Every structure is written in C-alpha cells, then in structure tokens.
C-alpha cells in the first residue's frame, strides 16, 4: 500500500474584489500518494493555479481567504500553520516549479547562488563550499552542460529551456517530497517541453517524489500523469486514473475538452466540436451544475441542483447527474467515441 502524502478536503478559497467575492476554489477534494503524478487540468480561471498556490499557502491574505476545508501534508495540517512554520516546509518539503522561468529567477543573481541560497536556508549543506558542490551536482542532474561554468552565469545568458532547468534545480535543492509544477512547459517550445517532461519523470523515478502537474494541455497530461483531476469553475468535475479520463470519460466537460482538440490521425474535413460559450463568473457561480449553461446535453436537474461526486469505479469519480441511477442514458458524443476507439487501437 502506497503512503498518502497529501490529502485535500473540501478546500474553499475566496478573493475579495471590488465587484464582490470571487469563489475561485469551491470545495476541492483529492489525495496524492508517494511517487505518483496527479495532473490538474482546466482552463484559465478554473481554479487550478489557486489550488496549487493554496497548497503552498501562497495565497496573499488579503485579498485571499481560506474559506474552508483542510490540507493535510505529510502528517501536518497546513491551514492552521503560522507563516513562520510554513517557511520551514516551503522550498524544503514541498517546492514549486513556475510557468515562466524568466520571472521565477532573480535576474540580478548568478544562478549558482540562487541554488545555494535554498541549500543554506534549509540547512541541506554545512558550509558554503559544500553548498556549491551540491549546486553543481544539481545543475548536472537537470542536464545543464558544463555545470561548473554555468554556476556563475546569470539567467539572461541562458535559453528558456536551460532557465527552466535551473528553476527545477532550485526546486529540487532541498530534496522535496512534493513538487508542484504550475504549467512548467507552457512557455517552452515542443522539443524543449519534451526534454523537460522527460527530466521530471527521471527525477521522480530516482527520488520517489510526488508531483502535482498543472496544465491545460491534454497531450502533456497523457504523457506525465498517473491520475488526473479535471477542474471547472473552481471544482473538480472528474477524477480518475489517466486511462479512466482519456478512455472512459464520464463528464460532459471532459467530453468537450477531448472533442475540441484536433485529431492528428483523422482528416480535417469536419469542424472541431467546440464548447460553446465561456466559463461562468465565479462571483455568482451558477446554481446547479456549473457546466450546464454550456452543455448541450444538460438535464433539467443540472440547472436546479448541484450534482454530487458519483463513484464510477474504484478509481474513477464524476460530478455529473448522468451518473445517477435514474438518469437517462446519454451516449458519449460520436466524435469523442471515435477518437477513443482510434487511440485504443494502439496506433497514433
């Protein structure tokens, strides 16, 4: 039995704005085991980044409010910890890889120093010399050529991919149990993205780190994830293993996401199955299922009552009334079904 590292229960995060209270995260539940990768997928504004920042307690208060719920990490309840106690955990037991490597690094500091800073702060090295040796090791581990030389360079001297490797080296410096990667490859070219993903998987294999991977790219999800949480309007609407989500999706929003991507294997004669409309305003979240106004297959009850999380299988959960035993049988849209069939054929 794998050890549970992180347990998030009914997390609510709100932001006070002039227009009203934005309910950015509205009751998120998930757990993460040692050595596994959970991908959180969703569009901008779905609450995926707020969720990950909340795990690190990086939500500025005010305007942010932890409006409810619990985060248990490695035996500690994070919500009740003071900022001082959090400092000992952040960067040490859990670390973050940010989207844009240029803004994540300090442009006025040599990259070596940005790594030794973490090592010395969290007492992972006894002396400056030891810290330097370890920093060079880390640069080497993330695939930066000539690490001794690069130790003294500034971020602007490196390419985007190399900078992201430095960000990863900093995140790995204190040997964290949990890595949170918030769109770590979105700013990179595909070939560089592929290298960074390979690097992260390698690191995970060798050190049994757990990873939360936030992205909107379903291709990347299929590549890295063991399990997937699909977020929409501040809630997880579907949750399961990567196979559950890609080969047996149950939520109409997941169908929409899969259908709106072009299929490389098929000809391009037909239009994409776009999701109409745009995501709801979270100042006044819709009553009922948040996706109902954009869902062509919505039932009457979707507009009246919020569906609970139904259990589809041992690993698979979906927050849709379609899973209710009395629900009418609505088949998966043909475009999505065809794609699943063709990808299950093993050929791609």
């Amino acid at each position, binding site marked *: 039995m794998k050890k549970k590292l992180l347990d998030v229960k009914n997390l609510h995060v709100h932001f006070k704005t002039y227009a009203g209270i934005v309910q950015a995260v509205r009751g998120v539940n998930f757990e993460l085991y040692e050595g596994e990768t959970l991908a959180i997928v969703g*569009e*901008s504004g779905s609450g995926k980044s707020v969720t990950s920042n909340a795990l690190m307690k990086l939500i500025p208060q005010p305007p942010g409010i932890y409006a409810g719920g619990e985060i248990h990490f490695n035996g500690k309840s994070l919500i009740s910890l003071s900022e001082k106690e959090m400092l000992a955990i952040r960067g040490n037991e859990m670390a973050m890889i940010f989207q844009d490597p240029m803004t994540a690094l300090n442009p006025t500091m040599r990259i070596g120093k940005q790594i030794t800073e973490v090592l010395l702060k969290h007492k992972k090295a006894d002396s400056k010399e030891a810290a330097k040796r370890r920093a060079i090791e880390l640069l080497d581990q993330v695939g930066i050529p000539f690490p001794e030389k690069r130790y003294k360079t500034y971020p602007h001297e490196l390419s*985007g991919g190399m900078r992201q490797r430095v960000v990863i080296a900093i995140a790995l410096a204190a040997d964290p149990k949990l890595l949170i990667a918030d769109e770590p490859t979105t700013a990179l*070219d*595909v*070939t560089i*993205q*592929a290298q960074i*993903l*390979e690097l992260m998987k390698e690191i995970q294999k060798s050190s049994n780190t757990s990873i939360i991977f936030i992205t*909107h*790219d*379903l*291709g*990347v*999800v*299929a*590549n890295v*994830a063991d399990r997937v949480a699909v977020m929409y309007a501040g809630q997880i609407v579907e949750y399961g293993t*990567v*196979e559950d989500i*890609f*080969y047996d999706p149950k939520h109409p929003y997941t169908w*929409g*996401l*899969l*259908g*709106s*991507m*072009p299929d*490389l294997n098929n*000809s*391009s004669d037909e*239009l*994409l*199955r*776009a*999701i*109409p409309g*745009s995501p709801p305003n979270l100042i006044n979240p819709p009553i009922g299922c948040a996706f109902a106004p954009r869902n062509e297959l919505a039932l009457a009850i979707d507009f009246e009552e919020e569906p609970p999380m139904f259990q589809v299988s041992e690993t698979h959960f979906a927050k849709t009334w379609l899973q209710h035993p009395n629900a009418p049988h609505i088949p998966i849209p043909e475009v999505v079904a065809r794609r699943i069939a063709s*990808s*299950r054929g*093993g050929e*791609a």
Partner: protein
Amino acid sequence: MRKKILEVKNLIQHFGSAKEPIKAVDGISFDVFEGETLGLVGESGCGKSTTGRSIMRLYDITEGEILFNGKNVNSYTSRKDSMQFHREMQMIFQDPYASLNPRMTAGEIIAEGFDIHGLYKNKKERQQKIGELLESVGLNREHANRYAHEFSGGQRQRIGIARALSLNPSFIIADEPISALDVSIQAQVVNLLKQLQKERGLTYLFIAHDLSMVKYISDRIAVMYRGKILELGLADEIYNNPIHPYTKSLLSAVPQPNPEYERKRVRIPYKHEETPANAEVIEARHDHFVLATKEQLSKWL
C-alpha cells in the same frame, strides 16, 4: 491550374547592423494558392512571425521579392496603391489583449479600417456594416458600444477577426491567432476561421507553433527553422512522411492526448546541422519539397 495569390521569392529579412545582422529570415521562397491555408510552423525565434510581418509590409525587406496577385508589393509608392494593397491583405494578431486599443469601443475598432478607406459615408450604412461584421464572427450588434476589457479572450479575438474582415480582404495572415486562448475557446475560433474561409473564399497564411492545430487547419505546411524553410508539402504528407530530420524531431516531440501512445512514444532528438551552401529546394516526392543537398536527401530518404 490553381492561381498563385502570393509568391515569396528569396525573401531575406535582416535586423540590426549590416556588419553583424540578425538573420531572422534567410532566403525563403514559397507560393500561396488562392483559397488554401498554408501553415507556417516552427519554434520561437525561427522567423515565422517575421515572415508574416514582412509580407504585410510592416518591415522594409532586406532582399527578395513578394508578389501579391502578380504585383511586387514593395513597388507600391503611392498612398493609393498601399491602401489598395491593405484592402486585400489583412492580419490577425496573436495577443487579443494587446492588439485592441483599450480606449476604443469594439465598433470603433472594427470601423477604423473603413473610415480610413472612406467606404461608408452614410452613418446608418456604417452602423449596419459594423453590426453585420459582429454577427459574422458570432458576436451581437449590441457589442459595438462596449470596450475591449468588457470581453473575454475568445470574444476579443473575434473582434480582431471582424476587424481583419472589415475591408473584405482576400488574404489574411493569422499570426498565432489561438495560442493565447483556452483549449475550448481555441476550437471555437478555429471553427470560425474555417467557416469564414468557406463563405468568403479567403486565403490564409496561418502562423503557429501548435502543430496539431496547424495540421488541422492547413492544406499545406511549411516548416521553418533558423530563418529557412526546411520542408514544405501537403499537411498529411508532412505529418505522415516527414523527410527532414528536423521535421521528424519536431513531430516526435508533440504530445498527444493518448496515454498508451505517450508511454511508447520515442522522441527523436535533432542535432543542429548548418544547411550546406549548396543545398537547394528539391521536390523529393510529389508536391513535397525539402531544403537539402542531393547527398543529404539520399541519406534521409
């Protein structure tokens, strides 16, 4: 025989000092046929956006020739000729936040083009046309009085498209029109572009780095790398039978929404090779062109 609407001949666009120029575009040639979509793909910095902007006459080109409907676009000297050119060719920009003036209403943004060109003298007619354009891109007439910040990203891009359509052009350069948008919104915008192409017989030069979308929307694809076009051919042909090692590497790096495939995927690394001076554009297969020397080509095939 298909009509060539655009011919780019040995286009060179350098920036910076003449002594040590940055060779953003380094001698590329291609044609775009009427009614088709040519996808221009490549990684950041490969010169794809510069190519689009040079064709649009946003830069003074260093060398080469750009023929639009048979006429050299850089030979236009009078304002009248330039204006005529821009009625035919328009651009959709990447960032729908940066490309719309925040101090203008959607209606003013769309109408700016036809005000400059003096198309509609009559106020009622002008208003009518704004309404039609908004509706053709899936917005409402009432949106004309709103400012850009009142719209979502996808809606803003629709305004950008309406503006590009306002002069009824025949050719549109779309420079990464969807990369700033969310997945579900990307599909809406791509569908809209396809539908408009069908209705109006538009020709597109579609510039992007997202290979799966490019494959979906394009009839033919040109792969750019370090200021050169390495490979050009029909979209399916480029995807299924790439010849140049760079194209192969690029395609092998695209993650697909299919976990089983992803587990088995093998990435082909590419080691940069200077394109030899004696390399030429060779038609390796029917309508499938590669920049290579004869020796290279026989090695790759």
